[in-house]
């Protein structure tokens, strides 16, 4: 059952505040990912205060880096169920976890950040991993 919308509103706003576009329906996801070109980061948001509470600030830090994805989109696990389920079909090779992040280039997942790579780590440490991945996969195309 989805969480109270009022509870998750600040978590949504934290994402949109850093420029992420919310995908709340399967159609939204298909439009964004169906024929994706260029570079994109898909953030699977979560209400988990400890993991997502570090993952969102980490992404905000990482997006200050010179090399970054051309677009950031987000689905909310446990809230926008249909959109999250559809998004996960685009990276079905990876086991579902939330929060998590998929780095996509021309429709292909080139890097994936699982929840276990977020748990118990500082936003700075997670951001450092993210910017390294941006440099590795997105440098020549942004």
């Amino acid at each position, binding site marked *: 059952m989805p969480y109270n919308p009022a509870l998750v509103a600040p978590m949504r706003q934290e994402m949109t505040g850093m420029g992420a576009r919310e995908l709340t329906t399967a159609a939204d996801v298909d439009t964004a990912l169906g024929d994706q070109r260029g570079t994109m980061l898909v953030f699977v948001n979560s209400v988990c205060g*400890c993991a997502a509470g570090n993952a969102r600030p980490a992404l905000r830090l990482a997006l200050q880096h010179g090399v970054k994805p051309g677009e950031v989109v987000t689905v909310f696990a446990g809230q926008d169920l249909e959109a999250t389920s559809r998004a996960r079909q685009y990276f079905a090779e*990876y*086991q579902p976890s939330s929060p998590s992040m998929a780095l996509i280039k021309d429709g292909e997942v080139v890097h*994936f950040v699982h929840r276990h790579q977020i*748990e118990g*780590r500082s936003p700075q440490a997670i951001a450092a991993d993210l910017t390294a991945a941006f440099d590795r996969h997105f440098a020549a195309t942004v």
Partner: protein
Amino acid sequence: MTGHVFHPGHHELHGVTVVLETHGSRTYVGRFDSQDERGVQLHDVGVYDAGTAEGSKEEFLRRCDKFGIRSEHRELVVPGVEVAGIQRLIDRVR
């Protein structure tokens, strides 16, 4: 972050994905919940069994790190007497 308590009021590893090695052939990867007289409780647990697996344990753990944990048990309690060691997955593979 060594020593960082991820969920205040709980065990240091509560909510963290760990590798639990046993004295037998099995190694478990899952989210640590708690440890008490029954043993160690894990959630969403993947299992490597050296007696039946085709690849090595290190390959299994690297795959868990890259692709995530394929859960075979929603919840699992590993008796304390079987536990040989517990380590964060991210520390184990890097």
